[in-house]
């Protein structure tokens, strides 16, 4: 079965996020002075073949931990859905 995975990677709480801070500082000039706590991150999408959704999730999480995120500074969340239905 083919699955679609989406991995979101973001800096862990407590790690300075100069990109998020810069975006937040720019927002009031556009009238968004009610926006707080901006954190910048990255999203990755890919497809993978696996026997079932649990296996697909396990593989995607393993990939996220070993490559897409650096666990010293980043957290990741993984979503997996059937891609072939």
């Amino acid at each position, binding site marked *: 079965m083919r699955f679609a995975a989406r991995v979101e990677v973001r*800096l862990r709480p407590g*790690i*300075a996020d*100069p*990109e998020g801070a*810069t975006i937040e500082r720019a927002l009031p000039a556009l009238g968004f002075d009610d926006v707080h706590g901006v954190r910048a991150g990255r999203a990755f999408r890919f497809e993978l073949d696996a026997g079932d959704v649990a296996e697909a999730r396990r593989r995607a999480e393993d990939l996220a931990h070993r*490559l*897409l995120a*650096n666990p*010293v*500074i980043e957290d990741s969340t993984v979503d997996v859905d059937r891609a072939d239905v």
Partner: protein
Amino acid sequence: MAAHVGVVVFPGSNCEHDVAVALERAGAEAELVWHTNQDLRALDAVVLPGGFAHGDYLRPGAIARFSPVMDAVERFAEAGGPVLGICNGFQVLTEAGLLPGALVKNQGLRFVCSPASVRVDSDRSVLTAAIEAGRTLNVPINHFSGSYVCDGRTLGRIRENGQIVLRYVENPNGSLDDIAGLANAAGNVVGLMPHPERAIDELLGSTDGLTLLGSFLQSAAGARAA
């Protein structure tokens, strides 16, 4: 006999020739080692030079750590061999887990390119063994992701062990505890953001890079004799 030092070349490295020239000026015999090489046993020491290994895609060093040569670098380091990572090489060593912590984007997203004063704060490493602690060196920095971070427990440990070998006199990038150079617990693996290979001649404004590389080569000679 001159120390035989391998300078690893990843696709996207760009300081390897400068490092080779600097090592030779410090008295070594330098050899460029392509990143697919898997046997470093003939070398006395290994240097990972600066640049943009594998384009710095994903994170600096994130792809380079999976280059075939890195397994050999890990074995070389485990056997006690001296390993030095300069700038991007430092980032590769942290991504590979050979050094603790990580290097993140500079405070204020500022690219820094300037001379920097760094203080030798520990001689418990292959890079600083022959330099008296407290000495200040002038070595250029040139990076975007050089702000060192680690968790509190790691910071306590590296301070206690004397693993923080170089500190900035004036912090240029938000680096935790002013860290400019860091060693592993054994002291044989060292990473630093400043570029010693760019401070090897009075024409370049400083020869302090030769002091660092000379100390590294002395350690390499000692490791070979041991």
